[in-house]
Structure formats: structure tokens, C-alpha cells
């Protein structure tokens, strides 16, 4: 499964035109470098791309995020270029948060819903200029975005393949960028973005990330991807820069209390069962809703659900006693009544606590927060040991690192 053999290329034009099956997973523009480092050969499918779970050692990869600088390829993330005089009004209608408050040179985390107020996806919105945006998301949404553009003077284009992306995260990430020669990067505050020269082209660097740590994200034209990678690796050599896979990142994001679409909630277009759909208020994104701003997709349904108290779920952070991760454990009230499910859980090396994200059925997690338990099945030499552990609802993020927001960023 993890073996990529090369089949002799055929010269037959028809076969060539149909050769897509020889590469079942696409490579990203960074693939030559990642393949060279991928000692584990542990790949997964990220939106059709071959992405690493782990490259060399998932423990050490995680600690690269928290102690050094970690380089993570985010090229498979779906990216849309949205441009035009109505781009702001258009995005204000499509997405939940108030785009009129997002200044050029800023980024915000947002989400978008269908007519029924169910979340289609979450993602980040980059305002590159007054009239140009980049929307990054987990899933693909072009038909939805194009139909949403009816009545607006705006163009929407997918640029996932054209633009390569890297996340550089960790305490030494700022120093790496500075040493790589990106002069002025010290001026970026959290959620700022700016453009820098690179290899005859431009790289957009934002002080954003998915780790709760000091970190940056870099977007560059695909043909400049390898030179950017090499530039960062060279500059970061003495600061412990390491390429990492998703397993390490997933731990860091959980410590930061961040949710992942189709892991912690099912996106509306993917859900098959009617009760799996979630409104923003049901996955902790209620803060994005601004009834005072102009119309946005799902507004009517969301406000009605709030007014009529039709919200059925709530996403919470849990701290669980013991040190066994409670991944996908059932949550109980009074040890007997099933009230929810853990969607992600780890022993947090930073918090030194056993943490989890869980989706609960209201009023549990909302009005009733005591006497919650999780049932963990710990496999001990081919035998499950069932552990009923006390769970406490705690605020997210589970860890808060001052260096994430410190200005100027610290030089580690």
C-alpha cells in the first residue's frame, strides 16, 4: 500500500491520456523533498494528495513543533482566489464572520453554512488586498462558491494546484525566517500577512498556524516551492528545523483546542445521516455569528434555532483523569446514560493532562456539566481493560503559549 512502483511508461497516446491511475495519489510541489525524508513511508490521503502521517518519528516530530521549528506541507489544502469589486460583499454573504472588519493584510478563521445553517466547512480567509482574497478550506466548494457569486461582480477560481503552502511552526520559526532573509517579518503580528520577495517571485507569509505556537504560513507559486523549502531548511539548520507529518500536527492542534472538519464534526455536504449535521453553535463556532452584520448564508436558520432553542449538540473540551487517551470513547452521564462521543484525544505533553474534544447532546455539556464520564477501552495484550474515567469540562485552548502572540516574536 505504501509502495510506489514505477510502471514503464507507454507511448500509446490513449494509454497516456488515461495514465492517472498510475499515480493514485498526487504529489505536492514539495514531494521530492518530502519523499526523500519519508523514512516511515507512512502516507495518507489528504484531498487526493499523498501526505505523510509521519516522516521519521512522530514523537520527535511533535517536539520539533514545541521546541524547534517544524515544516509541514499544507499544499493539499483547498485554496480559492476570490477577486473583484464585490469580493468583500460576496464573502460577507458566504461566510459567517464580518468580512467588512477584516482589513487588507489580515487573516481570520471563519466558517460557512448552507441555507439550513449547517456548517459546510471551516477555514481561513486571507485578505490580500481590498479586492483580493484567498479562502483556504478542508473540502472543495467550487460549485457552491460559484452559485453564491450570482449577483456579485467577483471571480472565484480554485488555485490549489497553482499555489504551494508551508506551515513553519515552533519557537524558532521566527528566527528561521529572519535568518532566511525575509526582512520585516518581525513586524507581523498574529493574523497579519505580508508579501516578500523569493526567487524572482513573491511569497505571502502570514503569522498563522494550526499549533497554538509561534508560527507562520507561507504561500508561494508552485514552481518556486522547492527553492523556498531549501531556503528555509538551510536557514534553519542550526535552529533544529525538521519536516513533520500530520500525526504530530494533530497533537499540537488538539492542545491548541482547534477543531478539524470531518474529524470533530461532519461537514454538511458529506453527512449522510440527517442528525450528523451541525450548526456553528453546536461545534463551538457560535462566536463567529454576527446578527448585526449583513445577510449571510444560514442566518435565518441559525437565528431561528437560537430563538427556538433547537440547538441539539455542543462541542466541549474535556480533561479526563488518568493518562490513557480517550479517543472515540463514549461519554456518559452518571456512568450510565450515553450523552456524547470523544472525537479527538491525547495525553498532552505540554499541558501534562489527558485532554479531549467531545460532542455532547444538550443539555449535557451546556446546562448539565457535572458527573460526566468516559469509557476507555484500553487494549492490554489482546484483552480490553474497560476504564470508566471522570471527565471535566474545561475551557479551550488546553495550552496557552505567550510566545504565540509576543511582539516582537522572540528569538529562540
Amino acid at each position, binding site marked *: 500500500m505504501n509502495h510506489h512502483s514505477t510502471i514503464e511508461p507507454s507511448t500509446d497516446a490513449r494509454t497516456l491520456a488515461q495514465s492517472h491511475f498510475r499515480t493514485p495519489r498526487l504529489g505536492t510541489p514539495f514531494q521530492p523533498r518530502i519523499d526523500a525524508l519519508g523514512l516511515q513511508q507512512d502516507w495518507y490521503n489528504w484531498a487526493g494528495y499523498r501526505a505523510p502521517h509521519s516522516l521519521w518519528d512522530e514523537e520527535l516530530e511533535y517536539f520539533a513543533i514545541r521546541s524547534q521549528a517544524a515544516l509541514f506541507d499544507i499544499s493539499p489544502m483547498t485554496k480559492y482566489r476570490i477577486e473583484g469589486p464585490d469580493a468583500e*460583499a460576496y464573502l460577507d*454573504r*458566504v461566510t459567517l464572520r464580518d468580512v467588512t472588519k477584516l482589513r487588507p493584510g489580515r487573516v481570520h478563521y471563519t466558517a460557512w453554512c*448552507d*441555507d*439550513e445553517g449547517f456548517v459546510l466547512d471551516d477555514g481561513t480567509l486571507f485578505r490580500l488586498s481590498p479586492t483580493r482574497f484567498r479562502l483556504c478550506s478542508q473540502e472543495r466548494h467550487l460549485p*457552491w462558491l460559484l*452559485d*453564491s457569486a*450570482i*449577483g*456579485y461582480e467577483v471571480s472565484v477560481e480554485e488555485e490549489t494546484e497553482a499555489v504551494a503552502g508551508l506551515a513553519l511552526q515552533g519557537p524558532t520559526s521566527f528566527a528561521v525566517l529572519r535568518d532566511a532573509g525575509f526582512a520585516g517579518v518581525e513586524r507581523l503580528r498574529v493574523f497579519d500577512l505580508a508579501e516578500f520577495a523569493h526567487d524572482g517571485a513573491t511569497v505571502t507569509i502570514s503569522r498563522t498556524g494550526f499549533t497554538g505556537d509561534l508560527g507562520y504560513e507561507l504561500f508561494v507559486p508552485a514552481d518556486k516551492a522547492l527553492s523556498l523549502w531549501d531556503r528555509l531548511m538551510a536557514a534553519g539548520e542550526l535552529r533544529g528545523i525538521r519536516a513533520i507529518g500530520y500525526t504530530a500536527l494533530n497533537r499540537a492542534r488538539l492542545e491548541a483546542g482547534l477543531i478539524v472538519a470531518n474529524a470533530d464534526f461532519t461537514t454538511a455536504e458529506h453527512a449522510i445521516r440527517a442528525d450528523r449535521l451541525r450548526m456553528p453553535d453546536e461545534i463551538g463556532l457560535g462566536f463567529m455569528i454576527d*446578527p*448585526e452584520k449583513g*445577510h449571510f*448564508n*444560514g*442566518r*435565518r436558520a441559525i*437565528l431561528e434555532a437560537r430563538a427556538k432553542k433547537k440547538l441539539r449538540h455542543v462541542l466541549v473540551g474535556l480533561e479526563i483523569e488518568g493518562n490513557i487517551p480517550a479517543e472515540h470513547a463514549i461519554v456518559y452521564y452518571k456512568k450510565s446514560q450515553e450523552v456524547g462521543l470523544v472525537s479527538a484525544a491525547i495525553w498532552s505533553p505540554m499541558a501534562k493532562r489527558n485532554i479531549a474534544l467531545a460532542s455532547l447532546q444538550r443539555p449535557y455539556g451546556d446546562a448539565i456539566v457535572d458527573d460526566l464520564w468516559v469509557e476507555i477501552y484500553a487494549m492490554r495484550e489482546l484483552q480490553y481493560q474497560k476504564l470508566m474515567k471522570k471527565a471535566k469540562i474545561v475551557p479551550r485552548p488546553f495550552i496557552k503559549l505567550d510566545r504565540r502572540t509576543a511582539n516582537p516574536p522572540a528569538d529562540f
Partner: protein
Amino acid sequence: MTSSDLNWDVIVIGGGHNGLVAAAALAKSGRKVLLLEAGNEVGGAARTEEFAPGFRVSAVAHLLNRLHPDVVKTLELERHGLKVERGDFVPSVALSKDGPLVLHGAYGEVLTGASPSEQSAWKELRAQLLRYAGVLKPFLSRRPPDPGNMSLAGMTGLGQTALALKKLGKEDMRDFLRVLLMNVYDLLDEQLSDDRLKGLLAFDATLGSHLGPRSPTSLLGLYHRLAGEVGGLSGAQMQPKGGMGAVVAAIRAAAEEAGVSVRQASPVAKVIVEKGRAVGVVTQNGETLRARTVVSAINPAAGPREVDTGFVRKVKNIRMKGDAAKLHLALDRPPQFIGVDAADHKGRLVIAPSPDHVERAFNPSKYGEFSPEPVMEITLPSFVDPSLAPSGACVLSAVVQYAPYALKEGWAAGKPQFLEAIMKQLEIHAPGIGATVRHAELLTPADIEARYRMPGGHWHHGELQADQMLMSRPVSGWSGYDTPLEGLFLAGAGSHPGGGISGAPGLNAARRIIAMRA
């Protein structure tokens, strides 16, 4: 904003007959109603207009066959000048080289010109069609059932329908369900043999829609027609004296008596939306008018920014490209249709000699071409009301199919040829008519769109087919005259139960608003 006071309870956009009906019914409930009409005259597609010096004609709709009895009663239209008498009912005449066939009274209570066996077959089929249409009739005067959110009234309504079905008896109920979504062509073949009669029925079933007689579900169009009534008689039809404008004048009189303020030449630029609620309109000359409730009695497609994408998607997918044209001829003298007696010239003359002929006329329209041998429904309004034409002259009004909205060659080039094709058909049935034409006006769907502000120039403001009826009209989820915008309602023919001069969408919308206390 220039005037921020809450001036009106209700603003109705669009003074077509449905807008007028909605406005009148709402004013009668004690609301202060303002009606804004974009054109210089109310009436929309139901106006009587002069198209040549001294010649006046009903602009689009030219026969009254489905003005809803509740509208007549609620607005007391008879007191306001609407006259419907049994003697006004006009026959339908199927023109043919083999001599005409005439349906007298209310949709052929008596059939002449056919063989005795065909007459008895027709008697049976007619009774069956009216029985089945009767099951559907109650749906016309209420909100469509909402399967996702059934109210008590909705349940009761459906219950009544179930009861009506049961009353048909076991055999009839089974047959009703069997034929409901059938094509009209095959049903006619089951029961009739006279091509003239079958041609007429095939034409009536498909009139105003993008369907041929052999298209699945085409029978529904016939039920829709027969669910309509005039003067208490299903299937009856009349040519109103003074043209359709006279009917509109009666509705307008009722509206004004009820206190509706009618403003003509006041096109609305946009609906003002504040926090998801429609709170008024801005006119094209910049005036801001505020109201608690806004009723749009115009085509449903408007204002994508204030509603959700999924809704816009559904609206975008409404099929509303018209396929019928309207012909007006100013004639030097009355034409003589072969074999048609003087009295029947007051009737509806249909050129649709056989179901195959109708089907063949439909075929080219699928590919953006007009019918080389079009089918049509002709009236001669000046026979009923001589004041519509100069003395001794005659007005001819015809609905002609098929004339696709998006003609491949473009209507600028195609229109003269289409007119020629129509005249050729007329010449066959009324020899010499061509020489008497003083003026001809042919309105293609594109012309109807531009002149009457009906996107697509569609007869029914959107195809009236199974997938765009009842709870799917104008779009699924929003069929009950409400819209995703609080305070904004729809009342045009784009809403259930659809087009024709019925006033039912307007009245149903008003009832909905009154029930919601909006």
C-alpha cells in the same frame, strides 16, 4: 433615507391582476396598502391595448376561463363591473380540412361535427376529466401542502383530498392515480378516435408550456385547465367585453374602493432589507417607502444578495423560458373560417388538426427552432365587442405555439419568417385573410418579456409542469407565498397555482399574510 416613517402596512410590487387581487384583499382586511406598478397602466399581461389605430385587443391573455370564484366573491367583482352570463360562454372550434368540430357550452357539454360513437366516447371522457380535475381543484385556493412542516390546516386539506379521492370510488380512484402523470396523447388514444377532437385536447393540455402531447405528464395541463371555472361552470370560457382590461378594471375598482393606493409608472429599484427582514422599497426615482409587509407580485427571481445560496440555486433552476407567441391582426373585414358558422366565430378557434400535428409542431422547439406549421388558438374579440375595432373591421388575437424563447437564429431574423408560417396556416382555414391584414403585431416570448416585464416571456411565469407545481412552485421549501426574507411575500403567477387570469396566487398570498398577521 428620505422618509423613514412607517407609511404603509403593505406595499405590493406589481400591478398585474394578481398584485391587484392581493392588494384588494389585504386592504379589505383593514391594512393600508400601496400598490406600485412599473408600467403606465396596471393590468400587466391582462391589459387591453391598442395595437393599431382603432384596434384594441387583450394584450396577452385573451380568454377568461379560470377567474377563481373566491376572487369574484371576496372582491365583489360583479358589483364592480364584471359581467359573467351563461350567454357569454363561447364554444371551442377544432378547425380542420375535414370540417370543424365544435365543443359547445362548458368545454363540450355538447359536441357537434363528430360521429355518434365519438360523441358518446367524448361524453364519457369529458365527465372523467372533470371528475379528476375536481379532485385537484381544492388545491387551487390554498397554500400547497408542506410535507416537511405540516400544519393542521394543511393536514385537513390533504384529508379532504383523500376523501375526494375516496368518493371517486375504487375503480375511478385507481384510474385517477394511473393516469395522473400520463401523457395526454396516449390517454386520448385510449378513449377517442377523432383526430380533430384529440388534436384540440392535445393542444389544450400543452398550451403555454414546453411540452408536446407525447411528453410525460402532459395530461396535467388539461387538468389544470379544467380545474378552472367561470360563472360556476368548470371548463367554461368567455371573451370579456372590453377585453381582459375590463376584468382588470373591475379588480382595480374593488382595490380602490377597499382603499388601495395605486401608483403607476413607479418601478421599484430594490426591496430594502434590514437584518433579514423586508422593510420597504426604494423606487427607481429614489423614493424610499417603508412598510411592515412587502408583497412581490412580479416574477419570483429578484435580489440574490439577501437570501441564501441554496435558495438562489433553486430559483436559478426554475424553468421559465416561454414557448408561446401572441399574434394580433388588424383586419379590414371579418374573416370567414371554412365551415364555421357566424355564432361560432365568437368562439375559440383552434388550429391543431391532430395530436401528431401538435407533437410535430413541438419537436423543433426543443432545438431552438419555431414550428414551421404552428398550432394556435384564435379569437376574434370584435365579434363579441364591436367597439374593439373600427366599424366593419375586425381584430384577430391568437396564441401561437411553438415559439422558443431562445430562438437559435435570433428573433430579429426569425420573426418575419415565423409570421409568414402563421399566416400560411391561417390562410388554409380562412382563405383570403392575408389580403385583409392592415397591421400585424407578433409578440415573441422575447417581446413579451420586454414589454410585460416577465422574465423568459413565459405564459405562466415559469413552466407549469409537475416538478414546478404545488409545493415545488416557485421552489421547494418556499411554496407557501413566504420567502426566506421575513416580511416579504410572493403573490404572482410564479407561485402556486400558477398562471392564467385566476387571481388565485394573489388571493392565496393575501390570505397567508392575513393568517400570519404580518
